């Protein structure tokens, strides 16, 4: 048991982190059919804003326990400043274009935002280690883990559960499902599709920024931070099925556990194992494990 517990705990922590980082990507794709590369930028912006604002908060001697609220606020701030402007100012004019064109546009925005980050924060690293150690540690399987990791797991559960509830049990969610299913028919029925796109893009970007801001206390926040995350997020989303929240959760769980098993038992294959799993899933289920049914238009 002592040997298996760390494998499971590490897998769960990594899965939770991956799910928070990736779920916004699948949400935006599911609703808007945009493969949003700026997801990486929002992740990085969330990390920078989280590190800067939390650092400033703690430097002024304010209560450290509220630093978690500051991390949340930082993610909200960068999202509200940028995401609506990006969607209303540029992306909405591109919806009629091919998915590849929109992908390239978000890639261009990602490159621009990478430089904007350097202009604002420079290239020196930012650290805000206090929130990571603030809540102490817990013992499991003979090892010590910072309690902060439980916040990540809790956050992932709240996001996953909240999204599922919103989609299944609220009027907004049900209307969103109609938009996902057929935006043209939704428009014809009087649904303000543009508003749903705006809300989805903003909320999906917020989730990316949230992933970044809550990762900030565990890493050195440096330029290029979002690049590797977007690659892993794509792997998670592809395994789970593009556009499926349940799929993203399952994809993150598979990647997290497989990686943890390989690190503990066969570290030589850690580099390759995630992409091997992705290749296997695509070989047997080319649209991912939980891909949404595509209506065939006649």
């Amino acid at each position: 048991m002592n040997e298996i517990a760390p494998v499971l705990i590490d897998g769960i922590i990594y899965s939770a982190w991956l799910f928070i980082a990736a779920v916004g990507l699948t949400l935006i794709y599911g609703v808007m059919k945009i493969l949003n590369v700026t997801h990486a930028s929002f992740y990085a912006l969330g990390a920078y804003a989280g590190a800067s604002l939390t650092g400033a908060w703690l430097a002024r001697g304010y209560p450290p326990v509220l630093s978690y609220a500051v991390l949340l606020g930082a993610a909200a701030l960068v999202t509200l400043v940028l995401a609506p402007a990006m969607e209303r100012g540029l992306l909405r004019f591109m919806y009629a274009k091919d998915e590849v064109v929109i992908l390239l546009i978000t890639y261009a925005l990602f490159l621009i935002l990478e430089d904007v980050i350097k202009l604002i924060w420079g290239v020196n690293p930012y650290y805000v280690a206090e929130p990571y150690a603030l809540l102490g540690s817990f013992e499991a399987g003979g090892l010590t883990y910072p309690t902060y990791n439980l916040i990540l797991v809790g956050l992932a559960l709240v996001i996953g559960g909240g999204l599922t509830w919103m989609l299944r049990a609220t009027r907004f969610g049900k209307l969103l499902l109609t938009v996902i299913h057929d935006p043209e028919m939704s428009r014809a029925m009087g649904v303000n599709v543009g508003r749903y796109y705006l809300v989805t893009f903003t909320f999906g970007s917020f989730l990316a920024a949230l992933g970044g801001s809550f990762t900030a206390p565990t890493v050195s926040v440096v330029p290029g931070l979002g690049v590797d995350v977007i690659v892993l997020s794509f792997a998670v989303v592809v395994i789970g099925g593009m556009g499926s929240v349940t799929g993203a959760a399952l994809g993150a769980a598979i990647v997290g556990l497989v990686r943890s098993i390989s690190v503990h038992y066969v570290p030589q294959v850690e580099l390759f194992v995630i992409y091997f799993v992705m290749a296997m899933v695509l070989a047997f289920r080319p649209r991912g494990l939980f891909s949404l049914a595509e209506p065939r238009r006649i």
Partner: protein
Amino acid sequence: MQGLKQLALAGIAASVLAPIGAPAQGTVKVGIVAFISGPAAAPFGVPAKNAADFVIDELNAGKAPKPYNRIGFGGSKIETVIVDEAGTATTQVTEFRNLVQRHNVDLVIGYISSGNCLAIAPVAEELKKFTNFFDCGTPRIFEDGEYKYVFRTSPTATMDSVGAALYVKIKKPGLKSIAGLNQNYAWGQDSWSDFELSMKQMVPGIQTKTVQMPKLFAGQYNAEISALLGAGADVIHSSFWDGDLEALMLQGGPRGLFNKSTGVLTTGETIMHKLAAQIPDGTVLGARGPFGPYAPDNAYNRWFAKGYEARFQAPPNYASYQMAQAILGVKTAWEKALAANGGKAPTNEQLGAALEHMTFEGPGGTVRMAIGKGHQAIMETAYGMTKRVGGKITIVNIQRYPAELVNPPDGVKSADWIKNSFRK
């Protein structure tokens, strides 16, 4: 009038017949390559670029200590073209070609990543462009290849790993097991392989508990930390650098990773001030040579460290020292070749011939181009342990190792040397 015509013709003839490179009173165009963006920028690239800015400004003003007090390179001021090392090795090859073929640089000093150095070396050779690697550590460059135009004025990872092993053996008597956490590419693989081999040579029967090799810039190391904590080795060796090293300390600190096992961080000097709170006492820190806290008290170090800190409000780290050393090495070779060439700017071939087997002094002490057929530097190295004194991190129990003890002889591969001759 006739005299003026003759003078003009002589001038034209001189310009046509002049060797490649700048005339002694012109400028020497130097390509400088380091990470200006990305995770390696802050701990390595920017301190290295800062060092280049400082040293080149000082040289151009003739303010460096003797014998480096002649302006620029042999009287010609140095002009730089800065290139960001971020991106793939393929990108760097393209950037290198741009430096040579579009910017027409006279020589290139650069490269932090071992992967980039391995990719650039054959291209430098193809383009016949003098190139001095200032930081990358993989010994494979001159062990697996032979180059005319490529040099490295910093020691290899072998020195770092062997030095670390010698230090650990003395300071941790009775150790029975080791573990490794290194990045999965040339640098990390070579560093671990040399360290493990050295330990096995010196401590027969030593057990390797776990070898972790996550990908470069992975960022999340909870599982690796658990595996290392679970393994419970006496010593954990890591050649992590850049943001990866910082993330490891931030994630490993609260879990007591280096409290349970002694951490041996071969590039740890770069974080000793920034992440002092996360480094427990007794952690072994390396600086990839006699740099930073291990630098000797010589005139060059006093000039460099004081001037750098005054200008950038931070002490230079080992990447800064290596860049300074690389520029001073090229300057020494340039002026030697200039003198041999009758005061005319040397060609790349003459510059290379001058640097081969050369010895020069720098802020880190004596540098000898002793291996790799005179293209690869060796130096003494030093290791020490951290100790908090009055809330400030210091290095204690410093041990120095002569260059010959921690570097293979010329013509012998590192792995063969460690297996067959090291400490036997």
